[in-house]
C-alpha cells in the first residue's frame, strides 16, 4: 500500500522521529514515499538506505514566512497529483499543525498517538495509545483519506543505511496568508540538547533553592549528560524554559534519567516515560515518581548527590 511520510527537517537534519516512522513503515511492507521540506542544498542522506520508494524534496526559501500554510498547500498539491490516500507523520509541533489542517481540508479520518501500523488482508490496522498512555487501542480508518500521527519517540532512530533512494523535486507552493512565524532560537544551557541526550539529571521542587541547582549541574557533568528541570522551577524563574523536561517542555528518551526532588505528576511522567532507566531521588516514598521509576532512592538529595559525585570521583 502506498503511503506518504512527512520527513521533518529541523535544526539542520531530518528528525530521528520521522526517520524511525519511515523505517517502521518500510519494515511493515508499505510502499513509502517521503516528503521533505528543507533549505536548498540540505543534507538528506540520512533518508538513504531505509528502503523508501522515493523522496520528494522541496526546497524551502530562506524567507519562509508562512511555513505551515506553505507546507500544507504543497502537500495538498502533491496528494491530489499523485493520489496519496494515507498521510503519516511523527508527532511534533509542526506536524500536528499540518496534520490537523490536512484533516480539515480533505475531510480525512485522523488517528494520533500511533505506535504501529500494519497491513492485514488489505486493511490498515493502527495501534495507538490513549488516556495518558494507560490504554492501548487497535483502530481503523473508515474514511477514504487517512491521516496518522505517530507518537513521539515511537521508534529508535534507524542506523544509517548504505542504499540509495530516488529523489524527485517539487516546487514549494509559497503561501501569502496564514500564520506568520518569526523564530527566536533559545537553545543553549548545558551544551547537550535534552531531546538527544543519553543521560539527563533533572531537578524538581525538592531541590529547594536555585543555588542548589549546582548539585544537578555537577552530577550531570560527571556523568557526561545534560541537565534539566521540571515545570515548577521554570514557572518560579529558576531555570529557562528550554531546560524544561515534561510534556509542555521536552519529551525525552535518554538511556538514563535521574529525577531529583521531582514528584512525578502525569505531565512530567509523559515527558520521561520512554527513558531506558529512571532513577528517582526523593524524600517521599509515596511520590508518584517512586511508583513508576526503576530505582527509587529514598532520602535527602542534598546528601545523596554529593556522595554520589564523590563516589564517582573516587572510582
Amino acid at each position: 500500500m502506498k503511503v506518504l511520510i512527512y520527513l521533518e527537517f529541523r535544526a539542520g537534519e531530518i528528525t530521528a522521529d520521522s526517520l524511525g516512522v519511515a523505517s517502521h513503515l518500510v519494515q511493515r511492507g508499505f510502499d513509502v514515499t517521503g516528503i521533505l521540506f528543507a533549505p536548498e542544498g540540505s543534507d538528506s542522506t540520512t533518508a538513504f538506505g531505509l528502503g523508501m520508494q522515493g523522496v520528494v524534496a522541496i526546497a524551502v526559501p530562506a524567507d519562509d514566512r508562512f511555513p505551515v500554510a506553505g507546507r500544507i498547500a504543497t502537500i495538498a498539491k502533491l496528494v491530489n497529483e499523485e493520489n496519496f490516500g494515507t498521510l503519516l507523520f511523527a508527532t511534533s509541533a509542526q506536524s500536528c499543525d499540518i496534520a490537523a489542517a490536512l484533516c480539515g481540508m480533505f475531510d480525512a479520518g485522523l488517528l494520533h498517538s500511533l505506535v504501529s501500523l500494519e497491513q492485514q488482508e488489505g486493511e490498515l490496522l493502527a495501534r495507538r495509545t490513549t488516556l495518558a498512555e494507560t490504554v492501548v487501542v487497535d483502530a481503523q480508518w473508515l474514511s477514504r483519506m487517512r491521516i496518522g500521527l505517530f507518537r513521539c519517540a515511537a521508534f529508535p532512530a534507524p542506523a544509517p543505511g548504505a542504499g540509495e533512494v530516488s529523489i524527485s523535486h517539487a516546487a514549494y507552493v509559497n503561501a501569502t496568508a496564514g500564520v506568520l512565524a518569526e523564530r527566536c532560537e533559545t537553545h543553549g544551557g548545558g551544551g547537550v540538547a535534552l531531546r538527544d541526550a543519553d543521560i539527563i539529571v533533572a531537578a524538581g521542587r525538592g531541590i529547594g533553592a536555585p543555588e542548589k541547582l549546582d548539585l544537578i549541574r555537577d552530577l550531570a557533568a560527571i556523568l557526561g549528560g545534560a541537565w534539566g528541570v521540571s515545570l515548577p522551577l521554570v514557572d518560579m524563574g529558576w531555570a529557562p524554559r528550554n531546560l524544561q523536561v515534561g510534556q509542555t517542555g521536552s519529551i525525552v528518551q535518554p538511556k538514563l534519567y535521574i529525577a531529583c526532588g521531582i514528584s512525578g505528576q502525569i505531565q512530567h511522567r509523559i515527558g520521561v516515560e520512554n527513558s531506558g532507566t529512571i532513577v528517582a531521588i526523593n524524600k517521599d516514598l509515596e511520590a508518584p515518581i517512586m511508583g513508576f521509576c526503576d530505582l527509587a532512592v529514598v532520602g535527602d538529595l542534598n546528601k545523596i548527590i554529593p556522595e554520589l559525585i564523590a563516589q564517582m570521583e573516587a572510582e
Partner: protein
Amino acid sequence: MRVAVVMKTASGAAFDAVDAHWREARVLPGVMSPYDAHAVEAAVRLRETGVAVEIVIVSMAGSEVLGALRDALAMGADRAVLLTDPALKGGDIQSRSRVMAAMLGSVDPDLVLYCPWSGDIDGSLLFGATAARLGKPVIAQARSLGVSESVVRCVRQVEEGDQQLTATLPCFVELTETINKPRYATIKGKQAARAKPVRAITLADLALEPSDAAAGTKSLSAVPAPSRAQPQVIEYSATCAADILAFLRQRDLLE
C-alpha cells in the same frame, strides 16, 4: 469584536482506564474544567480592555455541561450555545470538527479561544481541523496573547525555541494553561449568570444530518497498557552512593 470560547467536556469518573476509553465524556455536574477557565478568563480580559464586545461560549455535549456553562457565564461571558444531539455519540476528530465548524460558522466570531489540557492532543487536533474547515488561521499552544483590532500576536514554544506568531483576524487561538490565572466568579456574577441566555441546538438547526456526525475512524479493542515493573527501593545509608552506582553499572549505563 465577538470572541467565542470553545468549552470541551471533561471526562467524569470511570471504573478504569479501559472503561474511560469506551465511555462517553461525562462532566461532573456544575463544574467547569480548570482549563476552560483560562480561555474564558482570556476572553473576559479582552472585554475589559475594550477589545471584545461579546463573549459566546460554544460547546458540544449533553445537558450535564449546563453547570460548566453557568460557571463561564458567571465569570463574565455573555451567552452560550450548546449543541446536543444523540448522533454526536462516538464522534471523532473528523466528524466533530465538521460539526464544530458548522456551529462556529453560525456564531461567526472574530476570535475563537480554546484551552485544552496540555496532554490533550485530541482537543488540539480537533481545534486545528475545525479552523482549517473554516479556512481560518490557527495558532496552537499560545503562551501569550496580544490582540488588536485586526491582528493577533502570540508566543508558542516549539522544539527549537520560542516562535513569535502573528495572524490576522478572524482566527483561532489555542491557549496553554500558563497564559493567565482565572478569576473566581463573584456571587453577583453567579446570580447574573442565571439570566444569561443558553441556547440549545441540534444538528438539524445547523442543517446537518446525523450522518454528518458519523466518525471516520473506529476503535476495535482497548486493553490496559503494559506498565513498568515494580521499582527497586534503596533507603539512604552509608553505602547509598555505592549501591546506586552498582545498579547503574549492572544496567550498563556508566562509561
